[in-house]
């Protein structure tokens, strides 16, 4: 997804480099799994590796007719973070992320679709999860959007605990029919590998990152939902 909160501390970077060198030298290389089946999505078995330029793991329902959907019910954005990581972070900051990213995405979606809050025909539901777990059995700290609130566009530095968090986050996205609950499309990728990203030092940078990501997601959905398109997320 992006380089959201990208700046890792020098110490962490050095530690990571040292650990990599040691692991390469000590044993056969191990590939870290691209993502962990967190359980956020309805189904993972249907996902398959995306083509270059797509998200890492994708699914598009071959029977889905996106031209019949003109409305989106955007569910509260969810953050799942394992307790070990979240204990080092301020809960207000994580809540700010859940609210701010929701706001930015909703702002973009509104340009193409009617955003609704009630079920009905022609409505597809969009569900986004930011997942930061190291193991599927992790106990979770759960945050969901309370209100769509624009992230403060301020030069206040983000807390040290948030720096580099984007490297540990996986984004899970799911679109499904509001009436039948049939999954229309789904995708999973690392936050750092989606959307355009720049250095993130301040809340103003976060604000910009969220705007960019919302724009990027709208573009993805637009292309995927275009009539006759078979493009996946």
């Amino acid at each position, binding site marked *: 997804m992006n380089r959201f909160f990208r700046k890792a501390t020098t110490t962490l970077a050095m530690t990571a480099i040292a650990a990599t060198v040691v692991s390469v030298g000590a044993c056969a290389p191990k590939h870290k799994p691209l993502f962990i089946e*967190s*359980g*956020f*999505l*309805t189904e993972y078995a249907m996902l398959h590796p995306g083509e270059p330029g797509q998200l890492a793991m994708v699914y598009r329902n071959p029977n889905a007719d996106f031209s019949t959907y003109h409305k989106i019910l955007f569910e*509260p954005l*969810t953050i*799942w973070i394992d*307790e070990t990581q979240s204990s080092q972070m301020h*809960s*207000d900051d*994580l*809540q700010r992320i*859940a609210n701010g990213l929701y706001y930015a995405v909703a702002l973009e979606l509104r340009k193409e679709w009617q955003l609704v809050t009630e079920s009905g025909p022609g409505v597809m539901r969009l569900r986004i*999860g930011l997942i930061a777990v190291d193991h599927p059995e992790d*106990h*979770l*700290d*759960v*945050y*969901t*959007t*309370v*209100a769509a609130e624009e992230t403060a566009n301020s030069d206040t530095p983000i807390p040290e605990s948030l720096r580099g968090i984007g490297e540990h986050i996986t984004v899970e996205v799911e679109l499904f029919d509001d009436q039948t609950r049939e999954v229309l499309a789904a995708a999973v990728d690392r936050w750092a590998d989606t959307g355009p990203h720049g250095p993130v030092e301040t809340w103003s940078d976060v604000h910009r990152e969220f705007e960019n990501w919302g724009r990027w997601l709208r573009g993805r959905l637009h292309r995927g939902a275009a009539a006759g398109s078979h493009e996946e997320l």
Partner: protein
Amino acid sequence: MRITLAITLALTFGLPIVASATSYNGYSNTGFRHYGKRQCCESAVVEAQDDSARACKRAGGFADYKRNTSRGKCKWDRRRDKQGRWVYSCSGVATVLCR
């Protein structure tokens, strides 16, 4: 000593344990009734928030959980049902602002 006394009083008289000056911990346990972890944890957190809000009201306060944050902890377990599907049980802990 004080903590022990507080817990003893809470257990004896059913008083809510105060998480801070203005909030109370709420707890929940969904039992094995969800077929997805997301729904299970969502329910656990919402029910724990409701429990926290009830504790707040019992203490004469006003639970302002819609304006504050939506945050909770979720511990989960799963097992196979008779059809072989995973069924989840989640326990939640949450604290809502109490005015």
